């Protein structure tokens, strides 16, 4: 069995890639995909520690998060389609109506 550090490293790498994607990308679809990366980074973390401690609760959590991610992707894409129909854009820097 690989030492826990490997998993943590992979998880951290995925998380950072996801965060960079969320913060920097203009296309909202890419932002959504980056959120999926973040969630999966968390999943890897949870499953790794579940194995390490022999506690199955972590894997159950991971399953819930997968279901949640699917739902979130569906809702998010729906919002994006609705928004596109109104504004003909999916670029995040053009979604700036909610400001002062």
């Amino acid at each position, binding site marked *: 069995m690989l030492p826990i550090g490997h998993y943590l490293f992979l998880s951290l790498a995925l998380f950072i890639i996801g965060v960079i994607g*969320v*913060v920097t*990308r203009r296309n909202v679809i890419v*932002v959504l995909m980056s959120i999926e990366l973040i969630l999966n980074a968390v999943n890897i973390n949870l499953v790794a520690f579940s194995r390490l401690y022999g506690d199955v609760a972590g894997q159950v959590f991971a399953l819930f998060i997968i279901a949640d991610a699917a739902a979130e992707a569906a809702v998010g894409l729906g919002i994006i389609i609705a928004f596109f129909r109104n504004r003909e854009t999916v670029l995040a*820097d053009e979604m700036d*109506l*909610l400001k*002062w």
Partner: protein
Amino acid sequence: MMPTGYFLDHLWLIPLFPLATAALMLLAGRRLPKAGVSVLCVGSVGFSFIYAAGAVRQLLSAEPEHRVAQQILFEWLTPGPMQMTGGHAIRFVADWGFLLDPLSCVMVLVVTGVGFLIHVYSVGYMAHEGGYYRFFGYMNLFMFAMLTLVLANNMLLMFVGWEGVGLCSYLLIGFYFLKKSASDAGKKAFIVNRIGDAGFILGILLTAVTLGAIRFTSQGLPDAEGASGILQALKAAVEAHALASGAPVLTGIALLLFVGAIGKSAQIPLYVWLPDAMEGPTPVSALIHAATMVTAGVYMVARMNPIYRLSPFAMDVVAVVGVVTAIFAASMALVQNDIKKVLAYSTISQLGYMFLALGVGAFAAGIFHLMTHAFFKALLFLGAGSVIHAISGEQDVHKMGGLWDKIPITAKTFFVATLAIAGIPPLAGFFSKDEILWRAFEKHPALWFVGFVTAGMTAFYMFRLVFLTFFGYSRADEHVEKHVHESPPTMTVPLIILAALSVIGGWSGSARFEKFLEPVLSRAGAETEAVSAAQQATTMEYVLMLASIAIATGGIWLAYQFYRTKRIAPELVASKWPLVYKLLFHKYYVDEIYDAMVVNRTKDLGSALGVFDARVIDGAGVDGAGWLARFGSTLSMWWDKWIIDGLLNLGAKMMQLFSYPVRYLQTGLFSSYAMLILVGLVVLLAYYGHHVQVLLRSVR
């Protein structure tokens, strides 16, 4: 033995019949066919007449001293006990009650009888007029009010009828209300009558306060009502020496009531409304302004005779006003050219005769003349209406003439009435007028002389009217001439009946008439001086009788010379005394004088009050208050705007100022928010990092 019977128990139905149809006409008359209106309205007056005649018949079945029927429907006004001047308290009651005694018998028969005939006549006369149902509605309303007036058992209910007839008079004078002169005449009649009515009201109040009673008599009522009548209260007060003959308060009552009579019965100085009242349809003039309503004043004074008998001064006033009015009005009738105006002045003059009779204490003679006058004056007016009808609405006697053969029934009945009013025996007017003149002579020869001259003038102006209208050549237009026609039977039959009454109306003789009225008219005081004297004709009476026949004949002869043979030209006489003629023709300028003295001054007062209203009330008062309110609200607005709102705005401004730098954090771009979250997380972790380590270690 008190008289009883079906009709006496249903006295209240007599005024109710016309009231019911009047209400129906005024509410739903527009939807009824003309024939229905005629049948209902004439029929209701006919029923009133039948019930009145039945009631009179049943009353007459009793002994003369018991001929009183009093019926109280309900108590109307019951103020608390009143403290009397004598120290005892009396409860004065005004009820809705009816009184039938010989005096109201005469009145109710004249009103319903003549009223019925005039209603029948109106069916023909008004056939082609608009507002047919309205006319009959008002006429029936008038009948109701007049019957209430003559049947009332107390002064207040009498006043209700008094005002009711005044209202109907106003409505009917102004029947052609689109004509300015008609509506003006209606208003004039109403306003002039108000002056008289003010006197009447004060008289009623003074009676109530002085005697504690406004019922005419308590006869015919249960004993519990003991002293609730004016008659009984007066008797008690005289016996207790609380009031004596000539007491100032009685004179006051009598004069105040007479003011009311002056207004309603068109005496000097309030007669001015009656000539103008001729603007109404002719049947109205006949019913209201000749036969019934204008005699209400005479009836009222006769009804209040117990009080008048105790006030010699008031009696003298009545007599003098009456006789002066008689000659004054007769002189104006001499030169009038409108057939109805002549008759109007004649009515005023004849009413003057009646008041002369009342004033000299011959109450029965006054009522007798009232009755005969109702017959022949109604006939004269209806005849005049028939003439006007025949010649297409012309009223100027100078445009008539030669109608004798063309409208024979009208002409002959008119001639009969003229003979009656001129005082030619054996027609009705002779008996009543002669009685008045004789009784006036007994009082004072000067009164007789003025009345005597008036009799001559009456004969003259009436025959002038007859000669100008019916004889000589026709002076009408050609196309009017072609249309001359006798009136339909609905109009001529009442004329014939009234003509018959004008002939036989006086045959009962004044002595018998006086005996019939005796229970009402001479039961107040001890003095019944004239009654026995009246029954034995003296030589003097025959002399006076012959004198009045002579002067009547003289008047007729003079009129014949003037207007038939033309031996004396009226124009020549007029130009000989231009001032007199002008004075008479312009009716002594009384209307102009009243206009200048009263009407215009009242108008001036009105405009002065108007200016006062505009300047002081509106200007200083209302506008001032408005200005103050506006000034106050301006202040309040300033306070609101700068202080209240200012404070709020200050708070808001401060908030804006402080929030200014912070608002730039809200970019609306979610990536920047995500960045901020990230930075925040890193900072938090950096700061609390060792706590997390401790936490994790404890878990492990």
